[in-house]
């Protein structure tokens, strides 16, 4: 209950910090370094991955190059703890050893340890014990039990008109589950929450309260995954709590010898939505790249599906756009064949961000142009020439 009270203080904190100002900035000695563990046993995963890193204490500058799923620590400001021995003691007493992903000793995959243990073989509601020994001899341990319930292995795919649809998801109670974790992927960042109920309604106009700006959760033109998972108490307590930024109190973990979580998750529901919306505005619709071959062949994007994501609240501000683009994929230019687009339009002036995938955090190219009748005309920042996109009738 108290954790949600913290939301009420956010505004006030902002006002206080706005009225205050920085009066001193001083270097301080590095603090102690702790081991931090993020591990989950998932009933739907082909392998079980454990992340082992060091807490930030000011002795190293964490780096964050472009995010790579294969290197979730090294590419995301982590301080990987490599070379540790990690074992998992099964309920039957069998000891399994994890293998670190950094094959060949490179930085990629450092700190990512993997048990080649399919989720389907996990025993339910029985204790699994994780034991970690670092190269320096530090020891860390934790224990979890995987809740019951049949894992959803294949996604239910469906269209979802944001303006009219609401997705109602129900699921059976899962023996041993402490709570249920609902997560909706979104280009601006996911929305995740716990519920003790066994049903949830996700209307198309839902806002994402996990982000300060409260954007819409469902963005037209984007594919968005939704999961409902049964979780154990370790997962629930670690992810529902936060540390008070001024005192460091409040975070609940049950890892001995370090910090973090070793929890369990059973994905009970998996949906893959193709989010759409009506396209009555002149800027909304499907646009095809047109023009003589010498102009079109140099362009990477051949088709646009655009939506007015939000109309402007003020006349001096632009409408927000979203959508998707069909992209030429070649041997030399791999990547997504269908990518997300975000942008804006104001008084016929169009600005579009072409994403590297479906996340707003990674832009591949930027387009600036204008809407002339039923044609969008403009230039990409990277690609040469003028691009014309003609609206389909």
């Amino acid at each position, binding site marked *: *209950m108290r954790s*949600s009270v913290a*939301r*009420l203080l956010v*505004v*006030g904190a902002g*006002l*206080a910090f706005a009225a*205050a100002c920085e*009066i*001193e*900035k*001083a*270097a*301080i000695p*590095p*603090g102690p370094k*702790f081991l931090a563990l993020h591990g*989950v046993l998932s009933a739907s*995963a*082909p392998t079980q*991955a454990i*992340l082992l890193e060091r*807490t*930030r204490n*000011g002795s190293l*500058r964490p780096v964050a190059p472009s*995010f790579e*799923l294969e290197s*979730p620590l090294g590419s995301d*400001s*982590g301080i990987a703890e490599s070379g540790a021995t990690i074992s998992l003691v099964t309920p039957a007493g069998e000891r399994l050893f994890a293998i670190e992903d950094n094959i060949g000793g490179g930085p990629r995959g450092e700190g990512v340890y993997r048990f080649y243990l399919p989720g389907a073989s996990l025993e339910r509601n029985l204790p699994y014990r994780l034991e970690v020994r670092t190269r320096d001899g530090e020891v860390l341990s934790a224990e979890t039990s995987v809740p019951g319930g049949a894992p959803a292995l294949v996604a239910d795919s469906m269209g979802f008109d944001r303006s009219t649809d609401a997705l109602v998801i129900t699921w059976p109670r899962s023996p041993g589950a402490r709570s249920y974790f609902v997560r909706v992927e979104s280009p601006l*960042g996911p929305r*995740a*929450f716990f519920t003790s109920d066994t049903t*949830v*309604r996700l209307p198309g*106009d*839902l*806002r994402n*309260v996990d982000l300060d700006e*409260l954007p*819409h959760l469902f963005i037209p033109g984007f594919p968005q995954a939704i999961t409902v998972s049964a979780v154990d108490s370790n997962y629930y307590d670690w992810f*529902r*709590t936060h540390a*008070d930024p*001024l*005192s*460091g*109190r409040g975070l*609940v973990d049950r890892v001995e010898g370090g910090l973090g979580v070793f929890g369990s998750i059973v994905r009970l529901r998996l949906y893959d939505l193709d989010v759409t919306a009506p396209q009555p505005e002149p800027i909304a619709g499907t646009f095809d790249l047109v023009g003589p071959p010498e102009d079109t062949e140099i362009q990477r994007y051949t088709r646009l599906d655009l939506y007015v994501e*939000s109309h402007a609240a003020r006349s*001096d501000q*632009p*409408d*927000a756009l979203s959508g998707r683009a069909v992209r030429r994929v070649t041997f030399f230019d791999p990547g997504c064949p269908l990518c997300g687009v975000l942008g*804006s339009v104001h008084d016929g002036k169009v600005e579009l961000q072409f994403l590297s995938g479906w*996340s*707003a*955090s990674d832009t591949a190219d930027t387009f600036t142009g204008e809407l002339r009748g039923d044609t969008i005309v403009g230039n990409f920042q990277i690609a040469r020439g003028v691009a014309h996109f003609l609206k389909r009738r």
Partner: protein
Amino acid sequence: MSARRQLAIAAILVAIVSARLAAQDTGAIAGRVVLRADTAAPARGAVVSIAGTALADTTNADGRFLLAPLGSGQRTLRVRLPGWRTAERIVLVRAGDTARVDVVLRPDVQLLETVRTNARFFADSVTDAPALSTLSLDAAAIAGVPAVGEPDVVRLVQLLPGVVSRNDFNTGLIVRGGEADQNLVLLDGFPLYNPFHLGGLFSTFMDATVGGLELLTGAFPARYGDRLSSVLAVRSAEEHRPGLHTTADLSALGATARFAGAFDDGAGTWSVAGRRTYADAAQRIFTNDVFPYHFHDLQAHATYALRGGVRLALTAYEGRDVLDADLAAFQSDSVFSKSSRGRWKFDWGNQLLGVAATKDFGDRVTLEQRLSTTAFSTNLNLGDGAFAQRSEVRELRASGSLRLRGDVHEPSLGYELAAQRLRYASGSSATQTTDVDLVQRPVSAALWLDDVWHLTPRLTVEGGLRGETQSARHWAALSPRASLRVEATPLLALTAGVGRITQTMHSLAGDGALRYFDIWLASDSFVPVATAWHYVAGAERRVRNAGLVRVEGYVKHYDRVLEANLSDDPQRRGDEFLPASGLSYGADLLARWQPDSGVSGWVAYSYGVSERTRDGTTWSPGSDRRHDLEVVARWQLAKYRVGARFGFATGTPYTPIVGGVTRRAYDPSTDRWGTGDPEIVIESLGASYNSARFPPNHRLDLDVSRDFLVRGATVTPYLGLANAYNAHNVFVYLYSYSTDLPTRRAISQFPILPSAGVRVAF
């Protein structure tokens, strides 16, 4: 019996013996001032003085006053009240006796509001009770005391001994080592649950509506209960002049207006007042940007004295802070549209309606009956129902008392009966999920007995017993209270007191540096009742009638105090609070000087030590400020009234942050760690809780004002300067461990803050 209790009893015995040994060569004058003989309407706020001396008192709500000590002989008693003719009486004062005087005032033709130039800060006690740990402030005291943005009487409370504030942004009152939710705040005797705006920067009490306030910091009489640390009783101003009288105040923050007057030849008074901040409106006029916050107050107060000695009083209040931010309407400063942003709606406020009826049966018996309803609520709505949180407390309260005034005993018997409804709900109407929806309906009752016993003319003992019960906890308890006052010499009084206090209402606001309002929960089968014992002993010495020095030592032992649990589980009841034991002790000093002219002011020094213990671990709460010195002065410089306040205080505890842990996200849709979310969440790792202290704070505030008489109106422009020399007082430290050179940034409290305004009264 603990050593502390033995010490307290020994102190009381010593004081009694001292009193009996003391000489009896002074007397006193006590009495009552009324506006009309037929209705006996009390003249509240009349200044009663002895001609030729600086000894003076202000009448209380019943019109009563007390002047003591006085040397024996003939004295001229003078009574002044704006709008009424000054009355004088010759009174014979006998050694060891209290002369009783009743005064009836007559209307005057003078209708201008009195200028506050030489208003006294403190009103002396108007009862014969020991009144230890009690301070009374006149409303007029606010004039000339530096303010931050807006004159605020409650800000003055923070400058009193025994009271400390956590920081400039957190004005929860910390009284003698207590917590901010342990203060009972009363408006005309009716409770308000969270009387602050803008996170506590300003109180809900408009300057013009406040007639005075009384602060009790320990060992309260039995009539007060359910808050462990203090009682802050604010009373409404009453306008005794006939006709319509208006006060308007335009400050840097907002605009206030009050209309008031008397009617039926002074039998009744009325006032209505309102205030609203205008930064949001000003922003709209001058820019395209949005400032989505304002607060407002509305207050009404009326009194009427019926024939037959029945007096009626009504108080109504409504106030609300509103933050309604359509984030999409904020000015866009980038090429990317903000149109997709959602809406923050957040409002909180109080409502109060209370009536009181008082009847005197002769001069010695008073019967009072009170009925009130009060509410405090907060509503947060993010993204049109995507997340909503609601907290409210509603209370219906009936209380009454029967007071007898004898020559030796002044017994009182009273009751309180309160039915409350509390709701704390959090969830999403959009997703039809509920995190928590807790409703409590406790009924609490109290029966109290109190007696002020004048053992000798110099020794007064007040004893009381408060029996309390609460339905949700199935709890009942008896809380004894005792205090005494010994006039050891004509100028020296000794006081002591002890009492057990309980609290069944608790706040989830926690011990953080920021505290904006309380979210209340009642004791029930999961939440225990908090209890504390107060032990107080002190001495008070008058200095040539205009001055007074008071020293009080205290020990406050918490058998149980509740701390909000930062990790509580919304899906589980009973873990909202973590009980701890606690101990606070210290000493307060007040030296005040308030002559009829010249420099007046006070020096308040508070020394306090506070600690909490749970599971063998002891820590200092975040409000534990060991030394706090406040110097307040006001003087007349030619035609200008100048006020100054200087404060120096040692730092409060804080927890150093020693590092951070990155919270990794697991994406169940892909069964992979890490999703490439734009923001990485770093959780702070703290060292031992409150194991360090901020540097000392110091601050000088200045205020200058001048009264002009313009066409029958008093116009008072004022200028203020808070933190005049821009002291760099630390509010919080922010740490960064994201580089290989960790840093700590100090964030300031108030920088230098000028303010200006004008008050018009006619």
